[in-house]
């Protein structure tokens, strides 16, 4: 006798339900019971599968934009910044609060926009810092600012169509822009220096010129033409 006898309909109902569930089960006399690991039923438990379970965001970023981070004409320090940025490993105020380094009250964005300084806020949604994405006007392409960093990078890079030179240049511009935003944020925070948005745009233009020139990729002398129409100077206008 497995269950003490009690004449309650409710339990009868449960037994019925359980019975239906069990009616599909057929025991296999020839095989033993064994434990299985749901994430990989063939080869069993692995540290790798748990790592992926616990860090879905990292693998997703790695899939979509990891190749875009590294660029021959971009200084390694800039690529490393982007690498940390896409993994949300920059010491933004929100991240420092999470680590218990900053107090909760000190997590507002430097721009005075009243929002919390998260990675996502600083680089793709702050209405002050993200004015810098107007850099699109300079190269004559159009696009909206997506609200997720990796998606923003991906979309930006493919704005100018498939031509390899253009594509590569715009990719460089994105990396340069996040570099400039981060250094500007640090200047503001630690040195109390503020650049106007136009000064920042000038910085993007001149720095991209230097990087391209250093790689012998510019076909004009001087920066005048470059400032006016960079794509033409690259021979891809």
């Amino acid at each position, binding site marked *: *006798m*497995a*269950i*003490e*006898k*009690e004449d309650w309909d*409710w*339990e009868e109902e*449960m*037994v019925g*339900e*359980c*019975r239906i*569930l*069990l*009616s599909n*089960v057929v*025991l*296999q*006399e*020839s*095989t*033993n*019971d*064994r*434990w*299985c*690991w*749901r*994430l990989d039923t063939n080869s069993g438990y692995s540290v790798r599968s*748990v790592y992926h*379970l*616990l860090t879905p965001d990292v693998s997703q970023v790695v899939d979509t934009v990891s190749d875009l981070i590294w660029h021959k004409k971009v200084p390694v320090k800039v690529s490393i910044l982007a690498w940390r940025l896409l993994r949300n490993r920059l010491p933004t105020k929100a991240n420092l609060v999470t680590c218990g380094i900053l107090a909760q009250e000190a997590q507002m964005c430097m721009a005075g926009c009243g929002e919390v300084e998260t990675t996502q806020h600083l680089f793709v949604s702050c209405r002050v810092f993200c004015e810098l994405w107007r850099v699109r006007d300079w190269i004559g392409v159009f696009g909206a600012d997506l609200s997720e960093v990796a998606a923003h990078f991906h979309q930006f890079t493919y704005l100018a169509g498939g031509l390899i030179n253009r594509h590569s240049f715009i990719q460089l511009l994105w990396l340069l822009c996040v570099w400039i935003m981060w250094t500007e944020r640090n200047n503001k925070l630690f040195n109390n220096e503020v650049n106007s948005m136009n000064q920042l745009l000038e910085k993007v233009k001149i720095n991209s010129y230097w990087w391209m020139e250093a790689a012998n990729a510019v076909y004009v002398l001087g920066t005048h033409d470059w400032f006016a129409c960079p794509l033409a100077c690259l021979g891809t206008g």
Partner: protein
Amino acid sequence: MLIDRGGLWYRVLMARYGLEDGVLREGGMRASYWWKKVGCVRDGGRGVGGGSFKDNIFKKVGDGRDTLFWTDPWLEGGPVAVRFRRLYDLSVSKNCTVKEMFELGVGEGGNAWR
């Protein structure tokens, strides 16, 4: 811990902590620090990834000889004891294996439910 049940270390842990619902007992306050931590990983305590081990294992039943009917996760949707809590509370044979329950008869008029 679940598979290598003939191993020396399993037998040591069984002697030290005993079994509960077919698995090694966590041991409570008197357990060693190390064993408590292992228990946390197994049962999903506080902290990052809590429950990620327990929620991702299940028992594939063959002859049903080595699977506890009530408490092992061998059916989709979790252990029978959790889904049919009331029946488990009433059951006088909480440590029956799947095989034993089927031998008693789980169908209409079977002895398993009497």
